[in-house]
């Protein structure tokens, strides 16, 4: 790990240099309010070099009486959303960033001048004039707008999409999120780590395990806690089970979004089989409560056989789904070349995970880690960047996950599955997990009492939504649902 603490004046140049050297987008950029302890705020910026599996951090101090920092978003676009977030939540000004729109605290709901993540914020005195929202209009002869949401036709999270179209093709898509903002990062503060796991598991319901695991890893890294080998394997098995049930759900979603309902029904049968397996293994269909600080729950007698037998049936159904989808000319016609996100745009936006790998960005946090490295983990990368590429990544990852789980079940190490932390200590660290959608990142700082002083969460959806708004350009509005499903992003994970 590279860890640089620099003066505010050197913050920007250091970030630019690391960005250039690592070729990494901004992985995290966030503030921490330490006015009480240190008399000011800290800004942290993280990059990740996939080749060396190395994290690089830049940290700088902002005095309370001069709460501004130099924006890096003009040079590194992937910093933009993070800078807007810092301004919105802490009231720290990124100098030179032209985009001051809020992300989560909607203008027509929340007055100016209240910054929830400052430690002295209380919600009793929030009042004042409220503003209005404008999506920004596209003008010209024959241009029309199609506003959709926040309440959608399907059973799905809330978001507002405003399409500007000229004839059939979309020429602009404004996505407004924040409708599921619940203030999770604030709620996590002043909790003891073991009290906070349940909340982390409820940030994004479809990634309960990845979020719980990333949080636990952050705490374990602070405490320097070693995880027993058996727990490492079991955690990886659970993580891949989460990937499998979400991938099959998304694959079915893509089929239904082009009106191909038969394979979609088959996918929901497979998803149900996987969730039923989850429940038998962990007592939760969403694998909630499967991980704990220092380890995870153990399997019961007969569970290993259950996993192998279930996966056999599941893969038989999956192969049928795959044949149905890839063998249908009309389906392939709908997904091939639809919703392209090219590599350059994906890189600039910092798109990662499934969507990134479908656009040629070969980053997967599972690579070169145990137990993946021992089992010859194969990273799936495609270069086309269209709906089909994202579908193929998910189909291939589903097969790879199934292979890995079966291999691990057969060579599961013995011994304990938990190494309970003896004593909490102050400190900060990162937890990083490749969830099914992409990298789930938790940075946690514990105070002297062992309570959470700051927890920054980055769900991959946060970075990938902008990718969707570029991918749909020049596509027709009726193809939006399948483009959207191919990215399969979380509202609640983004909104926090």
């Amino acid at each position, binding site marked *: 790990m590279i860890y640089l603490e620099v003066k505010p004046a050197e913050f920007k140049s250091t970030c630019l240099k690391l960005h250039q050297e690592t070729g990494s987008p901004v992985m995290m950029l966030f503030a921490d309010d330490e006015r009480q302890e240190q008399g000011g705020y800290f800004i942290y910026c993280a990059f990740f070099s996939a080749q060396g599996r190395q994290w690089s951090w830049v940290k700088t101090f902002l005095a309370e009486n001069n709460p501004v920092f130099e924006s890096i978003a003009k040079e590194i676009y992937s910093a933009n959303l993070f800078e807007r977030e810092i301004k919105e939540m802490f009231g720290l000004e990124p100098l030179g960033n032209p985009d001051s729109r809020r992300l989560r*605290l909607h203008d027509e709901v929340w007055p100016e001048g209240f910054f929830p993540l400052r430690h002295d914020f209380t919600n009793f005195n929030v009042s004042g004039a409220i503003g209005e929202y404008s999506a920004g209009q596209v003008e010209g002869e024959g241009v029309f707008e199609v506003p959709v949401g926040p*309440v959608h036709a399907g059973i799905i999270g809330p978001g507002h999409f405003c399409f500007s179209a000229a004839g059939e093709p979309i020429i602009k898509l404004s996505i407004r999120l924040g409708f*599921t903002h619940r*203030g*999770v990062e604030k709620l996590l503060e002043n909790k003891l780590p073991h009290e906070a796991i349940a909340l982390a598991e409820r940030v*994004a319901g479809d990634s309960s395990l990845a979020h719980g695991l990333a949080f636990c890893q952050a705490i374990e890294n602070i405490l320097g806690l070693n995880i027993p080998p058996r727990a490492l394997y079991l955690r990886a098995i659970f993580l891949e089970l989460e990937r499998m049930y979400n991938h099959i759900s998304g694959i079915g979603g893509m089929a239904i979004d082009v009106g191909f309902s038969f394979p979609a*029904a088959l996918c*929901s049968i497979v998803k149900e089989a996987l969730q039923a397996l989850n429940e038998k293994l962990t007592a939760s269909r969403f694998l909630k409560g499967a991980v704990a600080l220092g380890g995870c729950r153990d399997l019961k007698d007969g569970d290993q056989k259950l996993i192998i037998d279930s996966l056999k049936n599941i893969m038989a159904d999956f192969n049928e789904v795959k044949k149905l989808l890839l063998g249908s000319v009309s389906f392939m016609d709908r997904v091939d070349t639809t919703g392209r996100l090219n590599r350059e745009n994906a890189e600039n936006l910092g798109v990662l995970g499934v969507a990134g790998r479908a656009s040629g960005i070969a980053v997967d946090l599972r690579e070169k880690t145990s137990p993946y490295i021992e089992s010859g983990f194969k990273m799936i990368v495609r270069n086309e960047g269209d709906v089909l590429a994202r579908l193929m990544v998910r189909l291939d990852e589903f097969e790879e996950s199934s292979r890995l789980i079966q291999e691990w079940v057969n060579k599961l190490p013995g011994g304990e599955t938990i190494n309970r932390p003896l004593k909490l200590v102050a400190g900060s660290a990162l937890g990083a997990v490749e969830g099914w959608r992409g990298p789930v990142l938790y940075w946690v700082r514990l105070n002297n009492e062992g309570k959470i002083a700051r927890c920054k969460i980055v769900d991959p959806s946060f970075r990938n939504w902008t990718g969707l708004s570029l991918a749909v350009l020049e596509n027709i509005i009726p193809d939006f649902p399948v483009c959207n499903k191919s990215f399969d992003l979380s*509202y*609640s994970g983004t909104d926090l």
Partner: protein
Amino acid sequence: MNTLTKLIKNRLKKGIVTRPIPSLELESLGQELDQAIKKRFKRSLHIREVDTGSCGACESEIIAATSPIYDLQRFGISFVASPRHADALLVTGPVSKNMVLALKKTYEAMPSPKFVITLGDCALDGGVFKGSYYVENGVGSILPVSLHIPGCPPKPIEIIKYLLAFLSDH
């Protein structure tokens, strides 16, 4: 063999995948309910779902309840795309401040008679998000709620049970 013949063959081989409801009276309750729904809602009950800030797990389970495995539709209950077509509003999430207006407008857009169902622990009182600066601590403070389905999230089978039990009582 052409694709269609192959599909039909596979379907026949697979048989019916729908699970029987594992409870003593529920299948008969379902039939009773069918009668009740036919009478009260003119043959079927239509539900509009609104997410006011859930983590998405509740949505996942509602969708599962309509999958071939649980097949909620067999009892005459279905989910519709517009509040204009709905008899009931099914609300998940602790109600983020950003969703208050959309929730009220969705309710207002429904024709009477109408009623509200909440689903999931956070829709009742905020659940794990209770006390946050940005949630309204449940749906009850905004709309009149007739039925609550507890769980975090409730399983598909529980969703069906609660709906059937409620409808047969009323």
